[in-house]
């Protein structure tokens, strides 16, 4: 009231802190850290080596689309997520659904999972859980109508409850702890039948002889294609590198089955030509390595890549993300439904060399057989830090191999990308010692 109205606007006190708001727009998937991780891994796989087989471009392209650009892989119809190779996929296909292997290899999801998992847990379980609690995870598997979780190792078992809390419908596929006993065979067969019942509930379809046969015809095609591919890896000098082999089988997790078979068949044809033309993928003296242990899953192909960049070649493997997934084939005596289901069940249990079982003499025999069959010079044993069973089996495997004069390198690692320097020292020292040994023997 006194005097003219001041026109200065009152100055608000400066706040003690600045408020930072999150960006309102999310990054397009291709620019996220996760996509970058995948992109980096894929570039190493492609660019660090020259003369990749042309047929591999189907797979490189597939991974680029799914992992780097976030393309959807959502198959038509009902999707059954699986967390382990023990879940019989033939049954899923027979009931008209699509199995999707959920095991994840991304460091990004590993860190998300680390938020609610104990510190010393297996990276694979952390990553899988991290993926499954994310809103729109990559690979884009879409909505899962069921998650089948075989009761394998401790961490997978406990993950069952966590998955349920995340809102996924979970089915515990009961796997026995002992492989050898008759009781476990009976138990597992019953478990598989329970699984069939569960699938019937979810899909609304019945398992019949006809649809199971049709499903088995499709998976048989995949197993056969895989075996032919596997056969090529026996060639010395090598015509095909392990990093590509891992990628091919990793693609099986989520790729459409028939399309995958076609792509592998094309790859096999090309490898046949390469073999005839004596095109080499690795040097003649490159140390040949059998890779065993915790499964390398894209983008965590860190260790096989390291081995091959250092001049070795991974000629074979004994891991559940590659060889063990597709190697064993089912024999059926009478093509009647119950016989088929029982034989399938046996195939998934009896030859399995996963360390979750009490005794694992089969794994040691298998490794020795692989070393012989693929003319390998040494074995690299990867154990994820926190994987108790693989860590404990390391000693007996090392002993068995050393008794037969096969050198073994034991590496404990996880998904974090920061131990490459340390790993490369070990891997290179190992490969060098193999070369020296061969030279001295000559």
């Amino acid at each position, binding site marked *: 009231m006194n005097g003219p109205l001041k026109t200065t606007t009152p100055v608000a006190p400066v706040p003690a802190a600045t408020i930072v708001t999150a960006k309102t727009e999310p990054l397009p998937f291709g620019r996220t850290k996760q996509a970058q991780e995948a992109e980096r891994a894929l570039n190493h796989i492609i660019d660090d080596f020259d003369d990749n087989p042309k047929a591999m471009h189907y797979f490189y392209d597939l991974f680029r689309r799914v992992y780097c650009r976030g393309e959807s892989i959502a198959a038509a119809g009902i999707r059954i997520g699986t967390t382990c190779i023990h879940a019989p996929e033939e049954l899923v296909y027979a009931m008209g659904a699509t199995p999707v292997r959920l095991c994840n290899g991304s460091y990004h999801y590993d860190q998300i999972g680390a938020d609610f998992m104990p510190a010393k847990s297996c990276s694979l379980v952390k990553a899988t859980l991290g993926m499954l609690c994310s809103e729109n995870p990559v690979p884009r598997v879409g909505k899962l109508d069921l998650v089948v979780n075989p009761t394998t190792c401790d961490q997978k078992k406990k993950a069952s409850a966590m998955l349920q809390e995340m809102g996924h419908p979970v089915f515990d596929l009961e796997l026995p702890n002992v492989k050898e006993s008759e009781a476990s065979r009976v138990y597992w067969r019953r478990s598989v039948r329970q699984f069939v019942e569960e699938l019937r509930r979810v899909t609304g379809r019945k398992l019949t002889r006809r649809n199971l046969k049709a499903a088995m015809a499709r998976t048989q095609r995949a197993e056969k294609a895989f075996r032919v591919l596997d056969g090529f890896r026996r060639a010395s000098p090598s015509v095909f590198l392990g990093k590509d082999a891992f990628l091919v089988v990793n693609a099986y997790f989520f790729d459409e089955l028939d399309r995958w078979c076609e792509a592998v068949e094309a790859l096999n044809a090309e490898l046949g030509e390469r073999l005839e033309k004596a095109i080499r993928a690795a040097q003649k003296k490159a140390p040949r390595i059998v890779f065993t242990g915790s499964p390398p899953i894209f983008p965590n192909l860190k260790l096989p890549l390291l081995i091959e960049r250092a001049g070795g070649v991974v000629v074979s493997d004994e891991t559940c993300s590659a060889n063990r997934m597709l190697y064993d084939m089912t024999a059926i005596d009478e093509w009647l439904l119950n016989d088929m289901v029982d034989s399938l069940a046996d195939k998934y249990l009896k030859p399995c060399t996963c360390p979750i079982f009490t005794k694992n003499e089969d794994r040691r025999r298998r490794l020795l057989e692989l070393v012989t069959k693929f003319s390998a010079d040494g074995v690299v044993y990867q154990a994820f830090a926190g994987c108790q069973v693989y860590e404990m089996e390391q000693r007996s495997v090392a002993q068995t191999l050393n008794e037969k004069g096969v050198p073994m390198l034991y590496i404990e690692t996880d998904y974090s990308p920061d*131990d490459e320097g340390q790993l490369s020292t070990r891997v290179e*020292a190992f490969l*060098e010692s193999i070369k020296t040994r061969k030279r001295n023997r000559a």
Partner: protein
Amino acid sequence: MNYYAGLDIGSTAIKVALVDEDGKLAGAHVAASGSLFYKNAKEAFETLLAKLGVERRDVRYMIATGYGRKLYKEADDSISEITANGIGAHEVGKAHGGVRTIINIGGQDSKAIQIDSHGGVTHFVMNDKCAAGTGRFLDVAARNLEIDLDELGDYHFAAVAAPLTINSTCTVFAESEIIGLLANGHGKGEIIAGIHHSIAKRTVRLAKKVGLEDRVYFDGGPALNRGLVAAIQEELGREMVVPKHPQTTTAFGAAILARSEFLAEEREFVADDA
């Protein structure tokens, strides 16, 4: 006169060694890695050449090893420090009855290596995830006790009472423990002896994984510390070979390998011609 060079580019120190045509050590040099290790490596190499009066062109082959081996592009080849250490220890050990086990304590890691009768590596284990039990631990301890690294050995032997136990498994937490012990009036000697024993226990435990075989060769920078050597000897209970210049064994091994690789290539070259 032909020379062959081995360059060990570690995270803490750079070591260069030169061997002559007959495979005998001509000379070696140690320098700090610093942060510009490429530049420092080059300088260290040139310093050694100058010291020995050798021309660059007389060095026919160079092998780089150690943490920075891949990035030193001027080297002709690179090998892991494990292989190099094996060759070097084998060579030095020849004059002392032969060695089969090597314990190496470096700036940031520690290793145990088993070699065969030709010096080839048969088995090895490394600890490179944790600085406890490495040279870093000694650095930290010396700093807290306000003494020089070279004095550690003297203090060890000057200890009157029994060595104190250091409970912390982590270097960083051990710092606080050391300060606490000092504050409680314990002597530096006893503390240092305790640290040495702590490292020794850890190291020997690592070495047992690889299998201990006579004789045990001990190298790496910290092997200059007589106190540490004594502690390890006690823990091992075996005959040990400690070289006069333990930091340079690996570089020496790399230089020897440089010589054999060069000669082998020459032979192949000649054979191709013939």
